[in-house]
């Protein structure tokens, strides 16, 4: 167990926890798995790429704008397609998010083509490699992603606990009818949840695009991260963080010591194990199980 392995696990876990938090926030609000999360990840990165026309030197502004844009897109998606489906069975809503994902992917491929893009290069920024003690090496973007993940997740947890709107979001998620009777605008709260989820996924997407490359296929990273909230508990952000470390560790070990082909299936084995043993994940709220 060397330092490089630890570094890789931490970086991957940061990525997974950002995307996983997105799944958790949406699940708490709408009781639905947003299978379009990967596409939101990809879309944010493409927004950044599109904004690079503003010229060099404005990277922080572009990052902010890209995140705001993707949050707006998520809010619009919620308002236009998920809100009208209140009351429909969960299966239908999930399938609806899949349909949306397909549309978003198709539109992105049409607008930006499938060619691999390198946003940092366009801006003239190089992604230097930092050499850490004990022989580990990560890039600036990877380190930044870990920092961003810590800040974002910490910020979200604090926001939900302390801010007034955050408390309203929690209330709406827990008991929508009661919350709305108490004067909370639950649809606004849900839209905000979706927007926050998109920001989390967006940060992950920006990090990925800057570190590796930007192409439509990166949306698949979202599906890869699905194991994390399922293992950690769909209602618990903390559980997601713990699970992300677990899943990242298993994947890295599988690639190192077993077959790289196996690494893609490892998350699914983890999902199955949890469904059999503890379906609501590590820290999720226990839900009624039908024992047959």
């Amino acid at each position, binding site marked *: 167990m060397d330092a490089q392995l630890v570094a890789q696990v931490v970086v991957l876990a940061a990525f997974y926890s950002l995307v996983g938090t997105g799944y958790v926030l949406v699940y708490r609000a709408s*009781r*639905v*798995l947003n299978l379009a999360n990967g596409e939101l990840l990809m879309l944010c990165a493409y927004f950044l790429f599109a904004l690079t026309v503003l010229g060099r030197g404005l990277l922080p502004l572009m990052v902010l704008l890209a995140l705001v844009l993707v949050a707006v897109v998520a809010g619009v998606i919620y308002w236009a*397609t998920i809100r*009208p*489906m209140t009351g*429909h069975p*969960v*299966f*239908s809503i*999930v*399938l*609806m998010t*899949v*349909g*949306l*994902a*397909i*549309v*978003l*992917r*198709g*539109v992105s*491929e*049409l607008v930006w*083509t499938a060619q691999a893009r390198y946003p940092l290069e366009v801006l003239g920024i190089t992604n230097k490699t930092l050499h850490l003690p004990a022989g580990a090496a990560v890039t600036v973007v990877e380190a930044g992603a870990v920092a961003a993940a810590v800040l974002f997740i910490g910020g979200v947890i604090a926001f939900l606990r302390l801010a007034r709107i955050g408390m309203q979001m929690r209330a709406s998620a827990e008991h929508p009818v009661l919350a709305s009777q108490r004067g909370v605008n639950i649809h606004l709260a849900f839209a905000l949840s979706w927007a926050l989820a998109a920001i989390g996924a967006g940060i992950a997407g920006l990090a990925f695009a800057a570190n590796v490359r930007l192409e439509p296929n990166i949306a698949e990273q979202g*599906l890869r991260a*699905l194991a994390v909230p*399922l293992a950690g508990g*769909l209602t618990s952000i903390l559980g997601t963080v713990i699970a992300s470390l677990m899943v990242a560790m298993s994947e890295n070990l599988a690639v190192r010591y077993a077959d790289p*082909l*196996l690494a*893609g*299936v490892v998350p*699914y*084995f983890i*999902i*199955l194990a949890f*469904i*059999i043993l503890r*379906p609501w994940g590590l820290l999720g709220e226990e839900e009624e*199980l*039908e*024992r*047959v």
Partner: protein
Amino acid sequence: MASGSGYFYTSYRQALAVFDTAFKKQALFALAIAVALFPLVGSNFQVHLVNLCFIAVLGALSQNLLIGYAGQVSLGFAGLFAAGGFTAALMVKELEFSAFIPVVAAASAVGAVLGVLVGLPSLRVKGLYLAVSTLALHAVIVYGASEYQHRLGGSAGIVIPKPSFGPLIIDSDREWYYLLGVVAALTTLACINLVRSRVGRAWQAIRDRDIVAEACGIPLVRYKLLAFTVSSALAAMAGAIDAYHAGFVSVEKYSFLLTVQYLAMIVVGGLGSILGSLLGAFVITLLPFVIDFIVHIFPTPERLVINILQLQRIAFGGVIVAVFLLEPRGLVALWERVKSFFQLWPFKFMVSGLR
């Protein structure tokens, strides 16, 4: 269902028949004639398209039985379809056995066994978790198939020879048409009878309120697992037939997108309806070709013509979203509305209480 006519059954036999009215019998006869004669007037390509629809019908029926009638959630279709295709591939490659009917039967058996496996989580969880566990099982099955393909079968995929029945070899679109048409028709008839039988009624009871169903004496374990078994066997059968039709099996085909396509078929067509499965299968299968058609008869910028695959994807996703927003009960509900309009005219609605 609204009915303005005073049509009454006069015998038990008539009440139990699948095609109970004279009109239905005549319509069925006309349909059969039309279907049988179509290859004589259609072009090769059009016949090929209908062949694809016939295969899709098999898959759509399997999904609707499980999701529409039995109310279980499953995202594992592609894994079972792959199981069928790879059983055929395995038998062709390893056992050098390619007789059509036994291979398809074997594929169905494999599908049934896997179906029990995929169905086991349904005894413990419902809803979202069930969906995710079936998705996980799909990933595992596809991984197994991929390992087989790359280690033993050859990375390029496995070629499946044409099916032969004695001296007759099925290698033209028209010959496939008749084979697939017969298979699809028989399967549809079997499914119609299945849902009208005790099993089908039990499934619908489980779908509507499973606790009450259990209280009424329906053993949940048996019927839930039966739903998964039958549906998976049918899906694997469809996969094997598809492998023969394409002549080729390769793991890349069995992606999550394939599952989404078949789910879209039953949602667009109508959950819990045999007719819905048929309609949905035809609509979703033909949709990309309709888009292709539209793009070529209207003046479209060249960039869009090259990227027609993206347009087809957008249309596909758009159809799913539109169906959910506009008519969640699918094309069948639309059809019912059209039928009621004509049956009740000049009235707009039927006062409830009268049949």
